[in-house]
């Protein structure tokens, strides 16, 4: 047991701490609120100066995000049958017709495949490697661990050109597999180190008890160690997902069509004519949802993961 003070803070101290927390929350949440509200503004409101805090909500940004539209002459518009849906009506109010769906859905799906795929692979490989490093006599263990860590000692983008050439030669450019492998390679060092810390903390006796109780090493691993490491696996998965989900530079460089993820796509929504900020904001808002949901689902584990090691048993 450590000997920290457990005295109740005084009222001014509490007020000070409270103010600090609220101020910090405002600073961090304000941009988020701005993005989310912009998604529901009309293009005019979005660029109004002074900025509008109160506005008439509109779904135009979301309609524009998911569709491609063509401008038509008023005569053609007149000649058309009446709009069949609410989103067609929104588009026609701007003298346009829907030409087809946009690529956002496809790009979003790419992000999901690549983000979750690489997260799964990083955590899967990371757990196995971390277990081996934690429990077995691996020759050159310390050197290998240092090597794994050293892959993150420079920004990954510094090796963008060799990776670009490599991907081109191997035919991995603009493929889902290529992006999954790349993000896994970047994340794996974090995964191995984080998970090794967690697995080191699990007493060996649990596995040994299972070995004696008639289980093989692998059964002991997945029946006894894995449930114990759930906290670590969850927090590692969140970190890996956040990285691969948000990654922009490599996505721009290595994907253009089939495997393009959402981050490089969202800026292209802005269009060539007017600047369609609501559509960009809508794209960004939707893009936030999966990571938020994932984090909320695992937050119980994450919280334990963050305070991990803080309490001595």
């Amino acid at each position, binding site marked *: 047991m450590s000997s920290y003070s457990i005295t109740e803070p005084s009222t001014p101290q509490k007020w000070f701490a409270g103010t600090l927390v609220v101020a910090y929350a405002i600073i961090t949440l304000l941009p988020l609120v701005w993005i989310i509200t912009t998604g529901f503004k009309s293009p005019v409101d979005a660029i109004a100066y002074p900025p509008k805090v109160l506005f008439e909500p509109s779904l135009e940004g979301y309609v524009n995000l998911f569709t491609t539209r063509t401008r038509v002459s008023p005569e053609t518009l007149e000649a058309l049958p009446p709009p069949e849906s609410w989103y067609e009506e929104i588009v026609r109010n701007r003298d346009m017709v829907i030409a087809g769906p946009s690529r956002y859905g496809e790009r979003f799906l790419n992000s999901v495949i690549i983000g979750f795929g690489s997260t799964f692979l990083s955590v899967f490989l990371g757990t196995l490697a971390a277990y081996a490093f934690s429990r077995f006599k691996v020759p050159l263990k310390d050197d290998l661990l240092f090597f794994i860590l050293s892959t993150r000692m420079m920004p990954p983008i510094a090796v963008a050109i060799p990776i670009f050439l490599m991907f081109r030669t191997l035919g991995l450019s603009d493929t889902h597999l290529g992006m999954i492998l790349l993000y896994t390679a970047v994340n794996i060092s974090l995964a191995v180190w984080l998970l090794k810390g967690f697995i080191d903390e699990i007493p060996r006796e649990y596995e040994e008890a299972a070995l004696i109780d*008639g289980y093989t090493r692998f059964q002991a691993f997945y029946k006894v160690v894995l449930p114990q490491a759930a906290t670590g696996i969850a927090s590692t998965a969140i970190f890996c997902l956040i990285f691969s989900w948000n990654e922009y530079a490599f996505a721009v460089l290595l994907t253009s069509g089939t495997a393009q993820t959402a981050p490089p796509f969202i800026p292209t929504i802005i269009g060539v004519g007017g600047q369609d900020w609501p559509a960009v904001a809508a794209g960004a808002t939707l893009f936030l949802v999966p990571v938020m949901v994932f984090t909320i689902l695992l937050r119980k584990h994450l919280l334990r993961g963050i305070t991990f090691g803080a309490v001595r048993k």
Partner: protein
Amino acid sequence: MAEIIIKNLRKNFGDFTAVQSSSFKIEDGEFFMLLGPSGCGKTTTLRMIAGLELPTAGEIYIDGEEVSQKPARQRDIAFVFQMFALYPHMNVRKNISYPLVSQGMAKAQIKEKVAEVSRILGIEDILDRPVGGLSGGDRQRVALGRAIVREPKAFMMDEPLGALDAEFRERMAEELRALHDRMGATTIYVTHDQLEAMQMGDKIVVMNHGVIEQFGTPQDIYDKPATMFVADFIGSPSMNFLRFHGQVHTGATSIRMHHVDLSVPAVREPFEGDMVYGIRPEHIALSDSSESRGEVVAAEYLGTTQIVTVKTASGNLKARISSDQPVRSGEQVGLAFNGATATLFDNQSGKALRSDLNEGVLAHV
């Protein structure tokens, strides 16, 4: 149930030798103690027998079968860990039934077995509780339940009482011994607590620095120590050592120390050089007629007995005498040694010299 034979068992961790060529035999149904200070290799020896550590060299026979290189799961033994190592994500019932699940036993049969074991251990009412909130004693019982439910050939216990508080430890020690007597299973028990070893064990192996110092019944080990280490480690207060220089011939029944003759059990080997006269505190009495004199330094009252520390020409001695006898600090007293119980040691090697007292016992080493 099984007999366990250890032959020339050795374990190196890199350059460090944890266990040096050990051999001993554990009879079927014996409660066997591995005793020694921490780092002496007792736990490593136990882990090798259990299959959690592979020996560098040597053989282990469980029930006649050589198992030294086999994985733990093929040895049919149970292990009770110091920290209990109950699976934290399972409740009590699941913990106890886990070894049976691995054997693919039918559910109904598992249920029956678990019920039987929990009745023996008196833990029927906590079967559906998670293990996290259990008291130390209940955890211990669950760990025992997990061990006995499978009816293994032998039990290994690594300081199973070490994590319990003193009060509870005594009760669990009794429960453990009663359980052993009821099941008659071969048990190997590791401890650093000499009292625990004496109290529970049928036989004791005393280890130090990876070497077996002595192997025998608690009485033999206490009364006829093979080495000065054993004499010192066992007993509280430990054996008195009086160092002197001299020689003994075969058949001698007394030694001369500081111009006083002290009787010893008939010596069976001649020796000349630095020797140690070892005598237990309870074999020293206060006697005014004795030639050996000393000054009382302190007296510790222990209820029925008291430990009197006496300063003599050969150093401080501790005597355990009846509390009825009044003793004052600073008082001059005479000391009478019960020579029939004394052991002579070679001061250099620490080994006991053979005598009529310990002849049979030393042959084991």
